[in-house]
């Protein structure tokens, strides 16, 4: 049996000692190449859960990425294995030109600028935004920034993708392209989203968070979703 790509074992998160827990006793795992949707109402803890997996928020319990426990000393290694999309894509665009931003993860790995830019151009092409390669990021629309940020997360071909609202702000063709692209990847994915149709098209398993706890974990979330209506 292969080890999971990501595992949460009785994980709780509170931002300050004594404060109310944002996540309580969360336990589940994501197998290699499995695509899991993380659903929940606003404030249910989806973003916090994703951030805890890359060590951006302190947690109790144990989180494993592949065979490595998430801890301060293991963070650089873990973060290299993960592609992460923030829910405000503008925040993670750190370079003024699109191609430089997308190529950064590869330059960081030691690839030459030319090689990294060529691979970045391929990813931009696969997302249908090759025409934006030379654009300043400030001139992009919100949806375009979303795709550029996603390209930056995908370019290093990580084994695990943690995506926070990846389909938000995308137009319908953009969502289709994204779903097709993600479905064709070998990586395991945990996708926090409110976009049920997008999740249903892409994911094979649904986890619903309610007030920081796992309320549902299965292949058919329709009962829970009906409860929201």
């Amino acid at each position: 049996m292969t080890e999971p790509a990501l595992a949460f074992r009785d994980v709780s998160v509170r931002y300050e000692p004594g404060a109310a827990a944002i996540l309580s006793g969360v336990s589940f795992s994501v197998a290699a190449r499995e695509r899991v949707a993380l659903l929940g109402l606003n404030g249910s803890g989806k973003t916090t859960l994703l951030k805890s997996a890359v060590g951006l928020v302190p947690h109790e319990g144990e989180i494993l990425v592949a065979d490595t426990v998430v801890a301060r000393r293991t963070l650089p290694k873990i973060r290299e294995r993960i592609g992460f999309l923030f829910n405000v894509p503008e925040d993670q665009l750190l370079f003024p030109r699109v191609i430089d931003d997308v190529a950064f993860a590869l330059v960081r790995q030691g690839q030459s600028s030319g090689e990294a830019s060529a691979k970045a151009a391929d990813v931009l092409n696969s997302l249908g935004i090759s025409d934006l390669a030379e654009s300043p990021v400030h001139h992009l629309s919100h949806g375009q920034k979303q795709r550029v940020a996603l390209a930056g997360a995908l370019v290093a071909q990580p084994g695990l993708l943690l995506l926070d609202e990846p389909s938000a702000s995308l137009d319908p063709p953009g969502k289709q392209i994204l779903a097709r692209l993600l479905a064709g990847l070998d990586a395991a994915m945990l996708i926090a989203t409110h976009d049920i149709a997008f999740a249903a098209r892409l994911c094979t398993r649904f986890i619903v968070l309610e007030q920081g706890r796992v309320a549902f974990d299965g292949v058919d979330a329709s009962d829970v979703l009906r409860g929201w209506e």
Partner: protein
Amino acid sequence: MQTHWHDLWGCARGPVVKLVPQARLLLGAVAFATCMIAPAATVTGGLLIVGTVAAWLAASRPPLRTVASFMVLGLLLLLPTFLLVPLIPPGSAGSPGGWGDAFLPPAILVVRGLSGVLISMATVASVSASSLREGLTRLPLPGIVSAILVQIVHQTATLFYETKRVASAMAVRGASGSGRAAWQILWSLPQVWLPRIVDRADRVAEAMELRGYCDGETRPQHGGRMRAADWAMLALALAVLGLAVVIRVRGPA
């Protein structure tokens, strides 16, 4: 002033843009230092400052409209220093008595300030936002320093555009009118705007950390090294800087 933040970067079309980015940055820094060191109160020093500014503008050749805009901006910022003239006691500028001497300190401030504004603008115009990063990473600066400098420039642009969006929203929601609604919006702005900036700074810091922005070596490995023309221009600029130092040390003839 209609010059937008991002449009200013790399808008110059002069011969200096053929130099490698790090040489352009160094030349701008040396020209700036020359203007700050040359004694602005002497004829020779004044000519050296004016000559340096003119030469740097000619070499980088930003659009005339941009030069004019920044000249107006510099004068608007600096000319009010002359309002201090009545408060300056005669002889405080180092020479005895008279109203003429009282005008000297603000005049020096205006000359130095305006030369600094124009040289900084021309330097910014001579490097694009991407070549700024390349230039900084090739200079012998600690990686963290160049990374943070680039990020300051980048995030300033982000805030600039966000401020424009907020201004548009304010206008639409009544701040451009008069009366109570306008005051309510203007009054609540700092309470909304400041936490928003702090939150954004936190989120950007998280993204920088996660993407390994300040870790390890991301210096470009190939190309972009200083060539003979770059070294020659730098030597010329350093010679002018040396002249400014000599004039300053020797004092007025």
